[in-house]
């Protein structure tokens, strides 16, 4: 079987998708054609006062029913067509539809007066649609065949070899025997047919070429982005290695493993450790973002979110006790389904959010974690009674390196990457995240913030 795939259709998945869609579109269009044809029959008799003889009328009704019938069959068939190379594929299906339509149209043209009917213009319309789908040689052959059959038809009628069916009431004098009329209409028709095929095919070809170039550039861009991220990961790693060693030495000196420290020196070394901690955190954040942007695929684990949250809360126990923070966790779900996602990434996201709540809630603060769900999604709310987020910052807090205008002083460490990572992770899981401040836990002078995350179940 000829594959029928045009040479310019390189991106197979997209191409087949387009063809499948066009096939379905043609089927729907054909139902419209049936309606129009029926309307034409009725209106030409009732309104235009055209009269069909018995043969014409029966023929047109039969053709209309035939179109309806084969369209229903095509609709059924369309479900079973697969894009297997060498087999009956959507393109063969397009071709089949086209042959059926053109045959039906040829019959309608014949029964409505051949050269005298305006309906043969519809051939041109078919040629344009065909050019968008089929390769040039196929559509040119079809155009040739139509022109050939149409000529046989009109000249057979001219020489009275077959009966002519004119629509009485349309023309006052018969024209199918007027050779000047036939030739002028025929020549123009043939020209229009071939020119439209040529133009439409060319334009389709060019559009696909342009589309392809665009897609190629897009691929190159994302490749460059991946390269950039790899480069960042590489560099940041190189920076982290010596920093890790510095950090380890600071720890040892501060642990007084090597001997006692005077309090003045100890204080400065503690500051040094805090600052190097800050740098390491920033590096880890950058690595997380780069990893997220590098890996298109996320692992698919079955994740029980409440387990993830409990695990994170446990890790925060020391901080919670030290700052006398009250943390409540309510699991008010009814469906309690697991979600599909990347456990590692989800842990990063929720440990960021919970970590933020602990960081900004302050001493004696309140944090509340709520899990709710419906059949399709799970909702997690993380609310605190912390310093809150100024209204002007609310829509910016998910962007890279943004830090709230109320935390710019040095009392809160952070890189401003956390929430941007969280948002990316949630969106990778087809979920969404929103923020509100003040939160439901607001206290005088402590507006608090609340983050709501929705993630789809499976």
């Amino acid at each position, binding site marked *: 079987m000829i594959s029928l795939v045009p040479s310019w259709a390189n991106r197979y998945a997209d191409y087949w998708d387009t063809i499948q869609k066009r096939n379905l579109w043609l089927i729907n269009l054909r139902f419209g054609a049936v309606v129009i044809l029926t309307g034409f029959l009725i209106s030409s008799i009732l309104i235009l006062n055209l009269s069909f003889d018995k043969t014409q009328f029966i023929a047109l009704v039969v053709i209309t029913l035939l179109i309806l019938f084969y369209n229903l069959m095509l609709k059924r068939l369309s479900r079973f067509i697969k894009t297997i190379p060498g087999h009956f594929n959507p393109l063969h299906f397009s071709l089949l539809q086209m042959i059926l339509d053109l045959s039906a149209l040829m019959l309608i043209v014949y029964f409505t007066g051949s050269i005298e009917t305006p309906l043969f213009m519809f051939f041109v319309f078919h040629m344009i649609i065909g050019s968008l789908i089929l390769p040039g040689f196929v559509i040119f052959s079809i155009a040739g065949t139509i022109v050939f059959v149409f000529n046989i038809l009109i000249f057979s009628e001219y020489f009275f070899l077959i009966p002519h069916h004119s629509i009485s009431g349309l023309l006052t004098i018969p024209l199918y025997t007027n050779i000047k009329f036939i030739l002028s209409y025929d020549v123009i028709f043939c020209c229009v047919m071939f020119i439209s095929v040529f133009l439409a095919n060319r334009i389709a070809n060019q559009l696909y070429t342009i589309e392809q170039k665009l897609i190629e550039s897009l691929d190159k861009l994302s490749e460059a982005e991946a390269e950039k991220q790899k480069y960042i990961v590489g560099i940041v790693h190189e920076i982290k290695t010596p920093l*890790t*060693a510095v*950090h380890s030495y600071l720890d040892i000196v501060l*642990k007084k493993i090597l001997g006692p420290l005077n309090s003045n020196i100890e204080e400065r070394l503690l500051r040094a450790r805090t600052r190097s901690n800050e740098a390491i955190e920033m590096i880890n954040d950058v690595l997380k973002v780069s*990893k997220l942007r590098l890996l298109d695929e996320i692992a698919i684990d079955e994740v029980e979110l409440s387990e993830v949250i409990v695990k994170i809360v446990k890790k925060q126990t020391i901080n919670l006790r030290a700052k006398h923070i009250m943390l409540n966790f309510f699991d008010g779900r009814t469906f309690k389904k697991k979600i599909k996602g990347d456990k590692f990434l989800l842990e990063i996201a929720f440990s960021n959010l919970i970590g933020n709540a602990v960081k900004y809630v302050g001493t004696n603060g309140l944090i509340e974690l709520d899990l709710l769900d419906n059949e399709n999604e799970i909702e997690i709310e993380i609310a605190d009674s912390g310093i809150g987020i100024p209204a002007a910052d609310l829509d910016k807090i998910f962007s890279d390196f943004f830090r709230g205008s109320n935390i710019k002083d040095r009392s809160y460490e952070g890189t401003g990457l956390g929430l941007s990572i969280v948002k990316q992770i949630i969106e990778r899981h087809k979920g969404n995240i929103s923020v509100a401040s003040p939160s439901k836990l607001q206290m005088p002078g402590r507006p608090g913030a609340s983050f709501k995350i929705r993630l789809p179940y499976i």
Partner: protein
Amino acid sequence: MITIAIIDDDPDILDASGLVLMSKGYKVVTAANPEDGYKIVKENSPDLIILDVMMNEPDDGFFLAQKFRREKITTPIIMYTSISKASGLDYGVNELIPVDEFVEKPISPEQLIEKVEKLLKKKEARDARI
């Protein structure tokens, strides 16, 4: 006396980790590349191995860990790693890495001691069963 082998290509990490562990009374042997690492493990049969991923070496930490396990060396291994490397960026996530614990650098002295003690206890329990 309990012996701990540390294998890391960063001499300062070797020194620092060594200092922490020695302060707790462990005997520490160190190696700065996988080859020497293999040797010191063979020679000293340590009770615990702290192994860095050492991505820059031709045979990295993973390779060495697998080699130990292939040769039926069941000594517990703590693997020093770093975030992108522990999360499937540089190797297949499904690849089996036969270590007992992953630890992200930098690790505080307290955490290091805690992990070491935990694994040594586990080993003791295991040895007692045998």
